[in-house]
């Protein structure tokens, strides 16, 4: 890994020509091979907040999963600065449905490397911030999607990771919690936190991100300053809906 780029900022994580294909069931196009990402290269700098935008199914979540080391690219390389951990925060997933919110939070914290003792100290603040009250002790399968996102968001917020990968979690929940989550996120981002942020909300991208990448059909379409990339993206969507 280069360590530092021209502008002097140090690289936390780098994707180089990353391609991801997978074989799905027979009978689909191209002999069942799906092409999710096609030679995606990007760099993530320390303490920055990088936004990823794009329409549904262009590979945003897959990019995050590759960054988190959950999936390996078919070709290309991923390098993360040694000793740094990345964790993915996404909706609807990540819970064992039969376990209580408390057990899930405990498990998530421990899977991210916290000791049992440390994980236990997180639990009360997770319960408090998520405002789940008694539901915290109930199985997650009884939760509404808003409650799930509260738990997921809070668990990730409270446990320490070097790179936080956020997949559209700020977009649900009621208005009051959304505001609180955004404020907490902002505070975290302004501190020493490197964040990759996937969202469909222009306002969130604008207020939280330093830089943005636009993905289209598994490729990087544009990247750079937030305002101009967002504008390009909006224009392309408008063109597509007019056509």
């Amino acid at each position, binding site marked *: 890994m280069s360590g530092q780029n021209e502008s002097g900022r140090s690289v936390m994580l780098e994707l180089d020509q990353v391609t991801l294909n*997978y074989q*799905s069931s027979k009978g689909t196009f191209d002999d069942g091979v*799906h092409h999710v990402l096609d030679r995606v290269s990007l760099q993530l700098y320390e303490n920055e907040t990088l936004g990823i935008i794009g329409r549904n199914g262009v590979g945003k979540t897959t990019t995050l*999963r590759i960054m*988190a*080391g*959950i*999936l*390996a690219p078919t070709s290309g390389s991923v390098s993360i600065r040694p000793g740094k951990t990345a*964790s*993915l*925060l*996404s909706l609807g*997933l*990540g*819970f*064992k*449905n*039969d*376990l*209580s919110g408390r*057990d899930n939070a*405990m*498990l*998530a914290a*421990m*899977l*991210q*490397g916290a*000791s*049992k003792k440390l994980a236990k100290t997180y639990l009360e603040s997770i319960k408090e911030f998520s405002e789940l009250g008694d539901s915290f002790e109930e*199985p997650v399968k009884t939760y509404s999607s808003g409650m799930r996102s509260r738990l997921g968001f809070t668990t990730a917020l409270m446990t320490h990771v070097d790179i936080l990968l956020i997949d559209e979690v700020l977009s649900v929940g009621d208005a009051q919690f959304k505001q609180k989550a955004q404020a907490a996120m902002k505070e975290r981002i302004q501190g020493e936190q490197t964040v990759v942020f996937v969202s469909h909300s222009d306002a969130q991208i604008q207020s939280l991100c330093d830089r943005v990448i636009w993905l289209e059909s598994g490729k990087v379409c544009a990247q750079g300053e937030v305002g101009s990339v967002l504008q390009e993206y909006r224009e392309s969507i408008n063109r597509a809906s007019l056509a």
Partner: protein
Amino acid sequence: MPLAQYFRLVDIQARMLLKADASKFTLGYLWWFIEPMLWVAMFYVVFNVILDSPRSGPDFLVFLATGKLAFIWFSKTVNQASNSIVASHGLVARINVPKSLFPMSAVQESCYKQITIYALLAVILWFFGYTPTSKWLWMVPVVLVFYLMIVACSLIGAFLVCMLRDFAKVIPLGMTFLLFSSGIFWDVREIGDPEKIDIVLTVNPMAYMLDAHRQVLMYGNAPDLNHLLQIALGSIFLVIVMIGLMRRYSQLLALKVLT
């Protein structure tokens, strides 16, 4: 992941699963006793009441209970462990964890349950006049080796189901085949031809393990240590290979689970 953290996670996940499992049912933890009791009751009705053959009697009931209650440990664990990685897709999609964590938690969970089942078996044996003796200490190596066998098969099952979901259909069928072929309802030692007995016990480690349970608990005979050691070494070899494969292909397994 450090080894200590790995084992802590296996244990904590197993305990959480037990708690969650018990909370699903009105009778909760009582099911740990009720289920094996019902098995024995079922055997009593079928073999001692309906099929009133010359074999019927308390001895045959104990014979069946010993075989079945040991076998249940293997079949339930392997079935559950095989689906454990796929069932944990939520966590697999979010964190890059060692995939063996999930089948190992399933193994650990059923270990806790099996303690009560073995205790119940001891009570049944005692009740029917098979008084515990110091010979029962032979159960320590037998149970240990049986455990290794369960771990090996659980890891293999979990890996196969991940790679090809169709194995989820095949594995329960395999269990039924083992149920009938491993001498739970019949005695391996009653096969006329001694050579055939040897072959069955060698080819099918399950038949050997169940026979060893009965030899120790019912007849006070020591197990064939050489044979036991061979099964142990074979199992350890498979466990090492499977853990290696799961580490090597951790991300491929995740991709298979998620697509």
